[in-house]
């Protein structure tokens, strides 16, 4: 059982949790993820480690409520417990030092970028984070990201704050030379359609681009193969070979199609949750 020490509601459907998990906090590196289970009959779901602190033995996760399990999780409060938590899983983000690193985050991706951008900034790299949301109320962790990276670029679809338009439009301007300047490396985390758009935006310029794939997973250790993603002409397991892959090689059509495997069952689960309420682990 893993205790929730802090909970913050970032947007109506986005919650941040700081959780006691000493071993994971010590081993974690930016870009890795955990798998958790909320209750005895619960599903195992993957979530990125948004931040970790080996001194206090805590990790931070940010979850967007999209279905039954994420809603169950979102309903937990400080002082309650998460039943199972395993990690850190996957490989850390690996980008060489010395260039202009640009992180692009959409949805929970903004949070997922946090500790990576901070570590790149701390080692002396030039860093820019581009985050986007439909409007300014849906932006996440703006203050934290501002500290974690040298430049922060905010985009909203409705122009309620920052640049009016998609993150990819702002990225394109930078590739074309707008300040803070052309990226040398890009890492994008967020919904798959956004990551695909980033891949298309940077393809022609051949700027090395990583995307953090989030297929459906079960074990997270290479045991089920459910998380397979086609990268170039090889099939990779996102949980052990990834989650980050070369954006220009990923077969996004296939990856997006595969996340729809359980659409009907996901609806059933949500309906059931609505009629029966949330079950707590503690």
């Amino acid at each position, binding site marked *: 059982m893993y205790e929730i020490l802090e909970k913050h509601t970032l947007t109506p459907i986005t919650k941040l949790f700081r959780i006691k998990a000493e071993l994971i906090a010590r081993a974690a590196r930016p870009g890795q993820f955990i798998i958790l289970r909320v209750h005895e*009959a619960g599903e*195992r779901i993957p979530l990125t480690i948004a931040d970790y602190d080996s001194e206090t033995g805590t990790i931070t996760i940010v979850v967007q409520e999209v279905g039954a399990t994420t809603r169950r999780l979102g309903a937990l409060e400080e002082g309650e417990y998460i039943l199972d938590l*395993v990690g850190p899983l996957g490989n850390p983000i690996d980008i060489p030092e010395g260039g202009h690193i640009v992180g692009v985050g959409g949805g929970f991706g903004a949070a997922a970028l946090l500790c990576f951008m901070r570590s790149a900034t701390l080692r002396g790299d030039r860093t820019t984070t581009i985050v986007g949301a439909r409007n300014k109320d849906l932006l996440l962790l703006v203050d934290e990201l501002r500290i974690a990276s040298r430049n922060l670029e905010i985009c909203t679809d409705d122009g309620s704050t920052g640049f009016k338009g998609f993150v990819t439009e702002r990225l394109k301007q930078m590739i074309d030379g707008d300040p803070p300047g052309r990226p040398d490396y890009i890492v994008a985390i967020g919904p798959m359609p956004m990551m695909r758009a980033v891949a298309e935006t940077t393809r022609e310029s051949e700027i090395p681009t990583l995307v953090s794939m989030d297929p459906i997973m079960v074990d997270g250790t290479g045991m089920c193969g459910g998380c*397979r993603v086609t990268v170039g002409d090889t099939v990779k397991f996102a949980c052990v070979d990834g989650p980050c892959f070369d954006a220009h090689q990923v077969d996004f059509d296939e990856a997006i199609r595969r996340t729809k495997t359980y659409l009907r069952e996901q609806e059933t*689960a949500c309906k059931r949750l609505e009629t029966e309420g949330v079950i707590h682990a503690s």
Partner: protein
Amino acid sequence: MPERTPLDRVRDFFEVNEGYRLDHAAFEAERCLRCQDPVCIEGCPVNIPIPDFIHAIAAHNMPEAARLLRTANPLPAICGRVCPQEVQCEMLCHMTNRFRPVAIGALERFVADWERDQPVEQISGESTDKPARPARKEKVAVIGAGPAGLVCAGELARLGYSVTVYEGLHAPGGVLRYGIPEFRLPKDILDWEIDMLKRSGVEIVCNVIIGKTLTLDQLFDEFGFSAVFIGSGAGLPQFLGIPGENLNGVLSANEFLTRINLMRAYAFPESDTPLHLGKRVAVIGAGNTAMDAVRSSLRMGAEEGHIVYRRSEKEMTARIEEHHHAIEEGVQFHWLTNPIEILGDDEGWVTGLKCVRMELGEPDESGRARPIPIPDSEFVLPMDNVVLAVGTTPNPLLVKSAAGLETTPKGCFVAEETSGRTTRRRVYAGGDAVTGAATVILAAGAGKRAAEAIHADLNEDAGRED
């Protein structure tokens, strides 16, 4: 052995075999000749004193039968159910020549099931509720809570060591938990065995992956373990590399069975993990895993379950009993049929399996006849799901993070067969992680031998003998 009728059992996950009653069992036990040369013992990888325990049943001395069994096999209820007896103990039984062999496995199961009904204190020899205090100061870590790791841990605890088992998943048991279905091995039995281990003082820590959460070096340097046993299994599923394998509705048998067994997809939506099956399910392969998958698909509501295998029935590796039960339950078998492509619709869902017919040629490296495609014999089996049960290999997670551990080209740990000693000092390995996918009893035997070797080596380190 009495079993439930196919029609009755094929829509639920309750156990197929019902087990003997005492009069049945004693009757079967009487058939054993108590041979001068009990060759059956040689057929058993852990050399259970077979005639002796069977004789005890015939004499209605159940406590003695249970005691004899446990001296040689720490997991009798499980092995009695899942051992491939027909190629082990029962194959060599002298009765096999003229009659049917003594039902050694079924009798083993009977004794173990009887034992489970007895008061726990009686079995474990506990005098108080407290677990016995370890007599040895050394601590030993075990990686993986499959049969190899559990048996190794149990033996070490018996020898007085404090033992911690680290398991990556949220529940212990390995393949016994996530692979072998309830209708062959009820999880109650596994839970009982694990409970007994815990009572003997073994600590099981789930949700820790060695190589990710902790490293092997940390176990020695920070946690102060004197020896480590690796029982990490062979859990990495293989795929065929044919077109269409990433269509929606194609799963590895590991994913399919894990969703059902570990995650209880059969109870969806009471449990949160779903499985999406159509009417027709093809399972590729013909081992135990394939039989478990195809029979599970029927229990999950599929109308048709098919086995597709490129070799013939003779080369099938599944236990005879499972094949037999699968036939009774209406599974359709396509022997000498090699899948070459999985076909899908516009939305990327499986619609069929394109196959080519095969014939048998000269024997290959494995000694089995090599299947060769028959020209122009392609055809399509209409299907909604394809499940691949074409083998597994050891998981490289651990090796990648630890220095000094040699592996074979197939990713198996290099370890001495008799002791489990690896190429790294005080690190031992056994079970599927060393042999590649094999059997429960071989894994259990390897765990036991490694425990003995660890005991001997730690004694040597401490400069003492016992």
